[in-house]
Every structure is written in structure tokens, then in C-alpha cells.
């Protein structure tokens, strides 16, 4: 699947402010704390807006730039080393300018290719897919960013109990955050090699499982639901699709399940993730999840999981990422392996000069 290998040289994460626990969330929206604990299973999340006033405290570009700086530091690279940047999000700060360009400005980089993908939970995989092509085409290093912020969609003044369930559920599921990964065409020390990648639209004829709407100044429907989730459809479809992704990754890489030490399953909510993981039936793989702490951060999720995985992944160990975007149904997956040190490109070893 990936004829040209490429590498994740560093990862980063950014979560705004202090974690908001279920007690605080319940109090803010008049939702039962016990219900969140029992049926959602998410313990905390972060918001880029003030729970009391609804005022934004962080923009998506703030979070993406923070995550990017972490990823660059982890990779040991400078912003000047980057040839491209790709941001995926469902919730850009503005429709134009594209948020990715605000991030580039914050990072002090110029004259590079930038892309922004309108995406959901598979966004990071989609960006890595584009990265693969860009690196194969001769670029050396790029930045993948993914994140979402909910300030525009969650109304701090609303008593959520009055909301229909398909909208209410979003209030307890989502959180804000961004993740970043530096991708390179060469195996820097401690890089994670992307050995397999699945990215496929599978939504022909299926109704959307999640809708995130947007508004302009005209034709504004007064009570339009800006967020809607068909949680029943998600419960029905995602576990099966996740299993398909797992086995397809193993088939295409030629790995057996015993070869894989870590599993990064879909992150819908604490409860759903547990159900999906159980359904996959690979208990020997160590699960790396974040949703119970971060909430469903949409685009950021696979990169937040990756950021948690990297410190634990030993040389030669393998991991699979499984993600499903339930909006219009997209499958995403990654097969990852920590590259064994090649002995070249040793960090800090710069005796030589550039040979022109």
C-alpha cells in the first residue's frame, strides 16, 4: 500500500486550559453527571472557551501552532526544514483565510505548500495520505496538523436538557484539542515508519451519522440543529468497520496479529471505544486511547493517540491505528513501526559540512 516508505519524526499535542470534569460539565449544562459517567464514559475534556461565559480562550490556530512546536521539538527539526503543511479540521477558525496559513504565520514559515482538508475523525489519516504523495514527489519534510474547537457549536447559555438527544449527546462527547506530526522521507532516529495506510470513502447510499452544520448571515433557520449525531447508526456500524480495517491492515502489511503490540482504536467515547475494542478481539494488543481524558476531539484524535503511543513504542515494535469517520462514513487506518536505528542521521552529529 505504501510503496514509498515515509516516517513520522515527531508528534505533539495541545489541549486548551484545565480539564473539565463531568461534575463541572453537568453543572454548566444541567446534565446528570451520573449519566455521563455511566453511558458516555468520558471523564474529562478540555474546552477552548470559557465554560461560564462561552468566550473563546484559544483558537484552532493557537492549538495547532502549539502542537506543531511540540512536534518540531520532538523531531529535532526547525520550522525552516518544512516543505509543506496540511491541516485537517471540521471547525476552522474562519472559512478564509484557511487556518493552516494562520498556523504557518505563527510558526514563522513562508513559501511552502499548505493544504487544509475539511475532515472529521479520519482527517489525520487523510493528511498522512497526502503527505505520502508529497514526500514521494520529492519533498523532504512536512507538517500534519489536525484539530477541532467547539466554541461555535456549543452554547454556554443553553440549558442542554431542553435539547433533543441527538444534539445533546454532542455536548457530552466533544472536547477541543489539536495534534501534530512531522513527517519526513528519511528515517531520523526514533522515527515511526508508516508501513500501511487505509483511507477510503464507504458512504455510498448511507445516511450521515454525524452532521456539523454551518451558517451564514442569510437563510438562517432559527432552530436549526448545528450538531446532530445518529448515535444508533454509529453503534451499529463502527465496530464492524473497525474490524474490517484491522484485518485489512494486517493483510496488506503481511503482519500477523502477534506482530502488533499496540492498538489505537476509534475514539468515539469512553464507552464506545471499550465496546469496539472488545469487538476487535485482540486483547494481546495494548490499547492506546485518549478519549476518556480528552473527550472526542474530532480530527485531533489519531494524533493525540499517536503522541501517547510514541514514548512507549520500542524499536521494532508495531502499532495499528483504526479510525472511522461516521459523518458520511470514511474508513481510515495506519500500520506503524518504530524504525530500528539506521546509524545514519545521528542526532547532533554534525561534523561534516554540506557537500554541495
Amino acid at each position, binding site marked *: 500500500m505504501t510503496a514509498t516508505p515515509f516516517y513520522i519524526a515527531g508528534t505533539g499535542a495541545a489541549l486548551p486550559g484545565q480539564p473539565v470534569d463531568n461534575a463541572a460539565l453537568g453543572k454548566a449544562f444541567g446534565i446528570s453527571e451520573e449519566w455521563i459517567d455511566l453511558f458516555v464514559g468520558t471523564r474529562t475534556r478540555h474546552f477552548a472557551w470559557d465554560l461560564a461565559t462561552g468566550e473563546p480562550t484559544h483558537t484552532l490556530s493557537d492549538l495547532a501552532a502549539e502542537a506543531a512546536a511540540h512536534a518540531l521539538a520532538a523531531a*529535532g527539526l526547525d520550522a525552516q526544514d518544512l516543505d509543506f503543511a496540511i491541516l485537517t479540521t471540521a471547525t476552522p477558525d474562519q472559512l478564509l483565510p484557511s487556518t493552516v496559513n494562520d498556523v504557518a504565520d505563527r510558526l514563522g514559515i*513562508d513559501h511552502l505548500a499548505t493544504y487544509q482538508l475539511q475532515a472529521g475523525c479520519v482527517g489525520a489519516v487523510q493528511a498522512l495520505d497526502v503527505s505520502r504523495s508529497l514526500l514521494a514527489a520529492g519533498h523532504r519534510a512536512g507538517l500534519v496538523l489536525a484539530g477541532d474547537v467547539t466554541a461555535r457549536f456549543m452554547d454556554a447559555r443553553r440549558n442542554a436538557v431542553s435539547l433533543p438527544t441527538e444534539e445533546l449527546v454532542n455536548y457530552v462527547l466533544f472536547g477541543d484539542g489539536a495534534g501534530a506530526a512531522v513527517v519526513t522521507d528519511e528515517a531520523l532516529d526514533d522515527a515511526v515508519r508508516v508501513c500501511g495506510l487505509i483511507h477510503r470513502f464507504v458512504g455510498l447510499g448511507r445516511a450521515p451519522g454525524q452532521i456539523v452544520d454551518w451558517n451564514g448571515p442569510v437563510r438562517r433557520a432559527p432552530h436549526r440543529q448545528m450538531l446532530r449525531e445518529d448515535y444508533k447508526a454509529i453503534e451499529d456500524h463502527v465496530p464492524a468497520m473497525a474490524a474490517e480495517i484491522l484485518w485489512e491492515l494486517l493483510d496488506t502489511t503481511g503482519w500477523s496479529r502477534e506482530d502488533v503490540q499496540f492498538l489505537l482504536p476509534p475514539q468515539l467515547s469512553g464507552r464506545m471505544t471499550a465496546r469496539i475494542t472488545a469487538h476487535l478481539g485482540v486483547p494481546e494488543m495494548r490499547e492506546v486511547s485518549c478519549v476518556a481524558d480528552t473527550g472526542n476531539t474530532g480530527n485531533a484524535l489519531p494524533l493525540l493517540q499517536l503522541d501517547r503511543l510514541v514514548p512507549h513504542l520500542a524499536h521494532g515494535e508495531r502499532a495499528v491505528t483504526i479510525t472511522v469517520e461516521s459523518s458520511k462514513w470514511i474508513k481510515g487506518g495506519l500500520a506503524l513501526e518504530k524504525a530500528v536505528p539506521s546509524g545514519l542521521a545521528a542526532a547532533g552529529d554534525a561534523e561534516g*559540512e554540506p557537500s554541495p
Partner: protein
Amino acid sequence: MTGAVAVVGLDCAFATATGVDAYWDLLMRGGDAIGPLPRRRWQGPGFDGRVQGGFLADPDVFDHAFFSVPPREAAAMDPQQRLLLQSAWRALEDSGRAPGTLAGSDTGVFVGTMSSEWAQLHMGNYARVSPQLGSGSATGMAANRISYHLDLKGPSLAVDTACSSSLVAVHLAVASLLSGECDTVLAAGANLVLTPALGLVYRQMGLAAPDGRCKPFSADADGIVRSDGVGVVVLRRLADALADKQRVYAVIKGTAVNQDGRSNGVTAPSRWSQREVIAAAYRRAGVTPDQVRFIEAHGTGTVLGDIIECAALGEVHAVPREQPCAIGSVKGNLGHTEGAAGIAGLIKVALALHHRIVPASRFATRENPRLKLAERGLRLLKSPLRLEAGPSVAAVSSFGMGGTNAHAVLASAPRVRRAPVRRGGAASGGVFTVSADTPGGLRRNLLTHADAVARRPRGDAAALCWSSNRVKTGLTYRAAFTVRDTGELAAALRTAAADERLAEGVADRAWRPPVIGFLFTGQGVQEPGMSAGLYGTSPLYRSHLDAVDAALSGELGISIKELILSGSTDVHRTLWAQPALFAVQYALAGTLGELGVAPDVVIGHSLGEIAAATVAGALSLTDAARLVAARGRCMDELPAGGGMLAVGAAASELAALLTDAPGVVVAAVNGPADTVVSGPRDALDALARRLAGQGVRARHLHVSHAFHSPLMAPALDRFTDAAARLTYRAPEVPVASTRYGRLLADEPMDAAYFRDQAVEPVLFADAFAAMIADLAPTALVEIGPRPQLLTLAARAELPDGVPLIHPAPGTAATVRDLAEALAVLYRSGLEPRWDGLYPPEQRRHERLVPYQFSTDSRFWRSPAQPSTAPHEQDAPPAADATAAREDPASGTQAAEGSAGSGDTARSPVLDAVIEAVVEVGKYPPEQVTAVTRFYEDLGFDSVMIMQLKDRIENRLPQADGITVPQLLPELRSVGTLAAFLGEWISVGAAT
């Protein structure tokens, strides 16, 4: 390759673009820096607002006080010198070092400059020449000033080869580095258009562009336009720069300089010589023409000049190659900055390699077809050129009117992958430091840093802090913030800048290195898990506690570290308490020592004297371990039943009570109302009840025995036997002895000393008072697991402003508390060795904003009209002197007033001296007070001393006859001179 030189620091100012970032922005947006001649420089018809050029807006602004240049001298200095001084400071900062740390080094200074038009304007009027104008107008001084004010002792020279001056300066600087003559070198260029003369010359030669624009390689090229500029680069041998982990913008691989010789006229360019100088530079650099990706051409935009340059370039570059060599010239943006042109080009190339993008050349779209660039292997840059990842080679040309040509070959900096940052959760942070010469300067720089930090992505502040510790230190007024991430840092900087005290001109002022007293606490402060927080968060402390633990384990048979950290209450047992406390103290002192905090005096309370003596050098660690283990063991073996009582009364007040308390003695005199008594527990209980009855505060101490009482006697023989086997040396650091209640003179700290101090009372109050009186410590640091002696110190009589510092205040204290202690010491004037505060991967250079100089003072003088005024009245023209200015003196007075050293009453002699000083330097009168120092604050030199002597004699005829050698030692401060003169006069009157 050994011949490689790294460009590690940059600063520049060109028209409409002050600073490197603004310059780069101008280049990237293809900006036009040309405008009309500023009114201030007009000299009548022909040299007025109709003259176009690239002119600096504020060449008259100069922070003279920062460099201790008297206003009179500043007003006489060629502004090129002033601009270079400030630019040199900022470029050195940009290289990741505090400029002050280079003082006394062999750093070289090479400045290219074509002329001093200032000198042409001012030195022709012989009636008005002055020593200041003389030194202010000399061309060589452009370099020598930098060397003087920064105390750089390497070669220092100005280079004049006309328009190639500053690239020739780079060539010489590189050679100086590579020959080993110096380890760091500043190469610079400066140009300032002040007279119409050269413009007229260009016009007569047909070289002046009618539209005031240089249009390099354009079909419309029709001449040059004159422009201002100043640029400084800091160069190091590449290996040195990499070893010091400096940021490398680009590498200079080779340079060459040659001459046209007898060409077609002394000012005519020579295609042959241009070709040869390029070829020579390539040979030295070890590159072939096909490898060169782009060239910053000389590109004057004169018809002939462009043709010859392109022909020469073509002869070299028309070789089989994958892609043409791109060319461009910054003269399209800036005009011709003459003496600074070479450095402008070099900085552009270095930035292009750093950013991996070459700016487009302005006026390139109408390329001159007669240049036949395509067939010559060349391409004029009509749009920016993005450089491929990986190394690129570039070059820069600069040619002088008299035929001296220079060429330099540069390459991308070697790709040094930084040590990847491993994240272990929270940001580690550090201490961010800022320093400035005045409170106002501190505020100004705090604000600039706050803005710059706020623009960065949020994240760990550690690398920023470390960089600030390297660069932003050494000046008098200081701020330091212990922070974790950049958000916290930006907020701290803003809050500090808004500090009322700064607005009032009061700030932490560090005159001199602090005198640090280490206070070692005695038994009783130990607690389970003491220093655990620090052990968990500071690898440095961990290594020191591990080391002392290893030294003690042989004596104790257990790991005292594990006992401490386990949280066991066994730590209170004397057997363990004494070595445990020693271990923590010794490790803390060692940790501080590695961070550059060494005591100038030590004092130890009881058991604390062992660690104090060890840190002072009286005992080796091994022997100290034996001593403290034996002391704990011998005392622990005594039967229980003794105790100690802290009483809130004077020892003398207790004397009567003690006669009725059998076996109870005074064990420690901690202060005028802080006494500890020691003895049998039942007798102490009775005493406590009686004290309570009298309303006197009394508290049992957490000890197992009646220390410092005769009850200790049975333990002493065995302890003395053990102590006698050890080696004692004279302490290397003054010791305030609590055994004697005074500073130790020649008495040894030996076995007898430590035997006696165990039974005799602890005379802390007297020892502490002696330490304050004799050594006047300016900072006190308690060495122990929690503050105790600092509480006593706070109750004692201390001079104002002595910070009481605890590096580990309590079990939960972390490396952040240690950092805060370091921050306080830094504000007090210490220059810590900060590295130990940061993990190695965070010790990397982050770019910080350059120093923001005061812009309040302006110095300018128009060309003087012929004047017959006598020298004495020749003050700088009134309009030229300082305008509004911040007041560095107010802080001085506030700080000194509290120190009590400057409150000399005003006397007629002092008034006369102040008047004379003000007159000599044209200082604002409020800047000169009794505490103002001649050299440090006023920048006095020998010429000024002679002038001062004359003026004093005019005002104080009684002082006639004093010789300069007599005056010299008294020229410390205005006050010391006045005192000396007062004495001289009174003695003279008496005889």
C-alpha cells in the same frame, strides 16, 4: 572542511528597515526603500528634498548612556560610529552570547566604510575642532569604538576600498579567524549620506540614476542612487560555532579579493578581474560553478557595470549545468549603500540560505536582453526562488570603484538535528532573565520580550529561558521570572513591565557580585521525606544526594538517602537525624555550587557546623561523613531523658530561673529574645510550667537528647577518639563560628573544636551579628530542608534589601523553588551557571528579540558656519543636544539612598565639582550626583579628566596646585572627588 566560517549573528539597519526581520521583510515583498532626503540633512539648493536615496529615518538617535558616552562626545561622534556600536551589540546578542562575556577576549572588529562625511562636514572648521570631534570623525574609530566599548582585544580596523569595503572587511575577518588570530570576529559596514559631494561626482561621471532608483540588470538601468546602511555579522570558525551550539545562518566557504590593476581607467570595472576573483573564491571554497545556485551580484544598475558584470559571471557560469545560476541584487530595493553594500549583500545571502528562499530582484521583470543571461548560464530572479531541501551554495560579489573586487562563497548551514525533546508530561520551564542599564530600559525590554513571546506558539519555555540566561544578562537592572510555559512567561513579562516600581525608576539593581552567606541549619529541622520534591525534579540535586549517600553508606551501614526518601520517622532518631541532615545540606550546597552559587561566608548552627566546615573546605567529604556518623552514633547511645526548650526570652533573663532548674543550661543563644535551654526532661517540664506562668513563650524541640549540655559529656570521649583520626584543613571560606560567637580567626576547626561545640552553647546570635558586621553579606541562603535560620535572620538587624533565600523550602519544594532561589540571586547581581537547571535537550538557542536601546536622545549637528567663538563657549549647537530622556539617575539615587553610601550632604565643593562635571560632558544636571561614578556611569576618559581639572581650578582657586596623579585615585565617584578636594582645601587653609 577546516576553512569554513559560520555566520552566527546578524544585525542591520537600512532605509525603512531597522533590524534583520524588517530587512528580510523588505526583501521578500520587493519593497522600495527610496525616499527624499530628510529635512535635517538639507544643505541648501541641490541638496534638499529633491534628492532621492535610501535614508535612515533616525541616524541621530543614540543610547549614549548605555555605552557611557558623554553627551558632548556623542554629539561629536560620526553617527556611523554610533549606529555601529548599537548594531554590534545586537549582532553579538543574536549570536547567542551576552556581549559582556566577550570583554577581554581576542575578538576582532573589521569595519568597511567609504568615508566619514561627518568629518568632511565638521573637521574643516578649524576654530571648532575639539578632541571629541577629532576622535568622533576618524574613520578608524568606526572599528576602534566597538573594540573599546565592548573591551575586545583582537585586531580592530576600518577598511576602505570604496564600494567593496565591507565585503573586503568580511574577507579580512575570515582570514583573521582562520589564521587563529581571533576566535570571534565582527565584520561590518556602514554608510551615511551627509553631503552632496559624492552625488555630484556620480552625476558628473554619468552614474546617477535620474529617477533615484538602482535598477540592476534591467533594460531601464540608468545609474545608481546613494543610500545609508549599517550591517554587522558575527563570524566564528564553523567547528567552534557547532561546538558551542550556536545558531548558524550560513557558512562562508571561501572568499577572495583582487584588483583590476592597470585597467581601462582607475574607476572602470574590469571583466577579467571580476572573473578571476570569482574563480579564486570558488577554488578556495572547493566548489565548481555548476554547483552555485544563486549569486547576490554587485548589480549597480549602470549600463556598463551590468554588462561587464554579467559578461564576467557568464565566463565562469556558462558551463554544463542542471539549472541556471540565479542572480539578483539588493540595490534594486535599497539603492547603493556604498561602504555597507557588501555587508547588505552578505546578510541577504545568509538569510536566504537560512530561510531557504531567495528574494526576487526588484526591477527584474524588464530584464536587459543585451545581458544575454540565458546563454551565460544565468537567470535573473523575477520571483522568489525556493531552495530545495538540503545544502545549497550561493555567492556574493562586491566591486569597488577603484578596482578592488571581492567575492564570497556561502553555503547552507550544516543540518544539525537538534536533540529531540522527550516529553515527560508537564513543561519543565526555567528562569527567564532580562537586564538593562536603567529601570526605563528594563521596562522597555520587558515589553518587547512580552510581545515577542506572545506571538510564539504556546509551549515549554525552557529553551527560551536558557537562551535568555546566555544572552540577556550582565547589565545592572535585572528581572528574572521562574516560568513553565510561554503563556506564563508572556504574562509575567507584561506584569513586570507594568510594575509601578519600574515606572518610578526603582528596580532591582545589581552593582556588584553579591556577597553570599550560607546558613546551615542544626538538628531539629529534619523531617521524613525531606527534599523529596527536589530529588524527584532536579537531576542535579539527585546526583549530589546520591554522591553524599555513597560517602555515608560505609559509615552508617544503610543508605541514608533511602531512609530519608522513604518517609520513615526514623529520621528523627539522632543516629540517623545527624547524617541525614548533613547529607541534605551537603547535597544542597553542592547543587548550588554547580549552579554558580558559592558562599562568601558560612555559618552553621550546632550540627550545621559540620556541613558548613565541609563546604568551607575544612574537611573532605569522606572525613565529614565519618565525623557526622560518629557524632550521631555517640549521642544516640546516650540514655534518653534529656531534651531542649526554646524560650522567647533573653539568655540573661533566664539566668535566675535556671539556678532553680537543676542540670538545665543555656544551649543556644539565637537572638535577643530567642534562647534554647537544654537538660533533663523533667527539669525542663518544670521550667516550662514556670515560664508559662510568667507569660513567656516556651516550646519543646523535636530532639531526643539534651544537646549542648553537660549531659553530652559521656558521649564525648568516643566521639573525640573518632574525630581525632580525621584530617582538618584551614577553611577556604570565612566561617562565622557559633562555637565562639564570632568569625573564626586562625583557630582550627579540628577534633577539639567539634568536641567543644557539642557541649558548649551555640552562640548563633553573636556569630551572625559578626558575620553581618564584618562581611556585610548581600544575600543569605539557608542550607537545610526548610527555613529556620532565615526566621532568626529576619528578626536580626539586617541592612535593607538583603534577600533571604531558601532553595528547598519544605518537603514538597521542587526544582522550581531552586530556580526561584537562583532568580533572586541573579537579581542581586550573581551570574549563575544556569546550565544545571535545564535538561541537555532544552539547552538550545532560541532567537530572542535584540536589545531595545533608548531612542530618547538625539545627537546631530549641522555643518557649522564659520565661527570665531572661542573654544570654551563651543558647546554643541543647542538644537543638537539631548531632547527628552529617561532618567537613569533616579534609580541610582533610590538604590544608593537606601544603601546609605551616597548621602553626602551638599557642600560648595561638591556643587562646584558637579557643575564642572556637567560642563565637561554636557550631561543632564540630574544625572550627576555624589554617587555617580566617573568611568562606569559617565564614561570619562583622559581628555575629559584634563578638562575637568581646568574647570575645577576655575571654580575652586584654592584647589590650584593639585596634580593629575593626585586626582586620578580619587576619580571613583563625584562624591569621592569632592571629599578629596574638600580635604585638600581645608588642609591648605590650615597651613
